[in-house]
């Protein structure tokens, strides 16, 4: 498996990342990381290659994974090791003056020690201006699991600097579509947040749509057409056990979990028209939450798990609505254009994110729920399926770049970050998994 990292500074020296998503035969998918552009306010951080004692597993080094994680957030600009003046691995070796000279704000140093099947990491993060250590910890993992160890360190570093939990140990679910033997091949996949370690969880000749993570990150709900029509399944990832939870006449679609993982919002048209229901997963009992001749779909809980955002075309075209509690009278949120759909709540409750049509283009936009102010976040033009990271700082969506289907991550205020383009076929319906402590 190849992995290369290249840096292409733009005129303004901004950085962002492109993950080139390469489908390979078999169960694994492969990614190449490319950093091209990023946010203006990116904080300069140096991740110094870690000292090693004992045999380390082949593959990407822990420091290179940490560096890529921090860069992909769009909030950091990392210094390539070849530009470093020294390669310290502990406090006594850190000369702050050198790092100041290089314009660095933070420096991460560390070392890895192999003992048996495990590798222990000891790492320290320094604030260059204050000449202070702001983080010093050890962590260990099986030698076969260096990526998890690295993502853990990235999370700690990210949180120490920003005060917000990192999301590098979380997972993505997405669906790829290509063809095999002249037939469409849909594959539901789960990967690390950098696209690595992708695993196929379901493969079908019929469409798979709308994966949704349970709050504990152990199950996915999704829509599968494998029986010839849209049916909602819940899939336990550890065992592969699947159960059909909604198979009524008409649509069974748009599943969304409640915070306690015990119920799903869903769209059913069993009574003739797309309406939003809540299903208790223990009893399969349904509560109807909308009742309107229009299409009501794409329900999603707000940040507090109390109110529900959804798409309805009751005004004549699709718009975002909000009901303050299940079944309450909906309030229209979007007015800025004739097409706004697929709402996803931000993690802190200030914003709702959605697909927004402007002229002939479809962008991702957000509305400030207090002021009603709408901001278009993307420059791409056929955007779908926004999903907000559990820390609220990033958002992933599906789009098209020069005819290639890609997943793109942006910071939640719109700064560019990175893309995972499908080299063959399409990659779609990305959904960011929960923070699991």
């Amino acid at each position: 498996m190849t992995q290369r990292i290249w840096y292409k500074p733009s005129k303004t020296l901004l950085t962002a990342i492109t993950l080139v998503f390469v489908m390979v035969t078999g169960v694994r998918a492969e990614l190449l990381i490319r950093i091209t552009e990023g946010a203006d306010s990116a904080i300069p951080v140096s991740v110094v290659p870690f000292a090693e004692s004992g045999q380390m597993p082949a593959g990407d080094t822990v420091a290179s994974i940490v560096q890529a994680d921090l860069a992909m957030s769009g909030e950091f600009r990392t210094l390539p090791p070849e530009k470093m003046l020294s390669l310290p691995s502990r406090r006594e070796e850190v000369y702050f003056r050198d790092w100041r000279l290089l314009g660095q704000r933070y420096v991460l140093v560390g070392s890895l020690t192999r003992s048996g099947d495990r590798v222990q990491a000891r790492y320290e993060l320094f604030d260059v201006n204050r000449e202070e250590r702001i983080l010093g910890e050890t962590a260990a993992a099986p030698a076969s699991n260096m990526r998890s160890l690295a993502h853990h360190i990235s999370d700690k570093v990210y949180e120490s600097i920003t005060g917000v939990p990192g999301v590098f140990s979380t997972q993505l679910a997405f669906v790829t579509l290509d063809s095999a033997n002249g037939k469409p091949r849909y594959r539901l996949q789960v990967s690390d947040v950098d696209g690595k370690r992708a695993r196929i969880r379901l493969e079908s000749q019929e469409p798979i749509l709308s994966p949704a993570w349970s709050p504990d990150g152990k199950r996915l709900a999704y829509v599968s057409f494998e029986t010839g029509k849209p049916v909602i399944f819940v899939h336990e990832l550890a065992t592969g056990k699947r159960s059909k939870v909604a198979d009524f006449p008409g649509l069974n679609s748009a599943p969304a979990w409640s915070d306690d993982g015990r119920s799903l919002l869903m769209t059913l048209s069993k009574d003739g028209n797309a309406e939003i229901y809540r299903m208790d997963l223990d009893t399969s009992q349904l509560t109807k939450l909308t009742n309107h001749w229009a299409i009501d779909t794409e329900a999603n809980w707000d940040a507090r798990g109390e109110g529900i955002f959804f798409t309805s075309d009751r005004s004549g075209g699709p718009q975002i609505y909000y009901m303050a509690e299940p079944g309450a009278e909906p309030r229209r949120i979007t007015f800025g254009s004739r097409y706004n759909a697929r709402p996803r709540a931000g993690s802190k409750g200030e914003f709702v994110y959605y697909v927004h049509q402007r002229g002939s283009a479809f962008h991702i936009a957000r509305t400030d729920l207090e002021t009603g102010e709408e901001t278009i976040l993307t420059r791409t033009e056929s955007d779908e399926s926004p999903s907000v990271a559990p820390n609220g700082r990033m958002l992933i969506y599906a789009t098209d770049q020069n005819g290639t289907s890609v997943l793109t991550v942006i910071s939640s205020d719109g700064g560019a970050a990175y893309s995972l383009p499908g080299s063959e076929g399409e990659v779609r319906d990305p959904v960011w998994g929960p923070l699991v402590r």
Partner: protein
Amino acid sequence: MKFSAQSKAFALLLSVGLVAGCSSTGGPTEDGEYGSDVGAVDQEGGSTVYGGDDQGGVSSSAMTEEERMAAREQAEQAALREVTVFYFDFDTAEIKPEARDVLVAHARYLANNPGQNVRLEGHADERGSKEYNLALGERRANAVQRFLIVNGASRGQLETVSYGEEKPAVMGSSESAWAQNRRVELVFE
């Protein structure tokens, strides 16, 4: 290339009229795209006899004339029914005026053949959100279903399914591809 339901029906009527008039033994029309085999049309009309004699145009009795009208009517209806795909404007489920005659022909046929079932497959173009498009495809299929029922088909003959934007008829991201993908297909079972 895209033809409206109306222009397809018109082309078929032309070809049927032409062949009937010439008493051809039947065969594919010049445009194979429609798959319109006039032999099949004649079989459904239950008559392959007129032609050579009629070209004289003198000696048909009233009875023959009536039969002939009926046969022609049936041939026309069958030709209309060759069209099984109906197109929609962006984000609408409104049946276009030019689709109405064709759908009426389908409804009459279903009324006359109660054992015949049909699946109405609703589709949307790729733009916008997948789940909304799933509901939009269903709304389109439902609109066609209602139209067929109003015109004589019975609910039990009609099954609807929406594929949303998942099964485009034409790949690509152009106005023309989108127009061909916003559709309801009638699939006879």
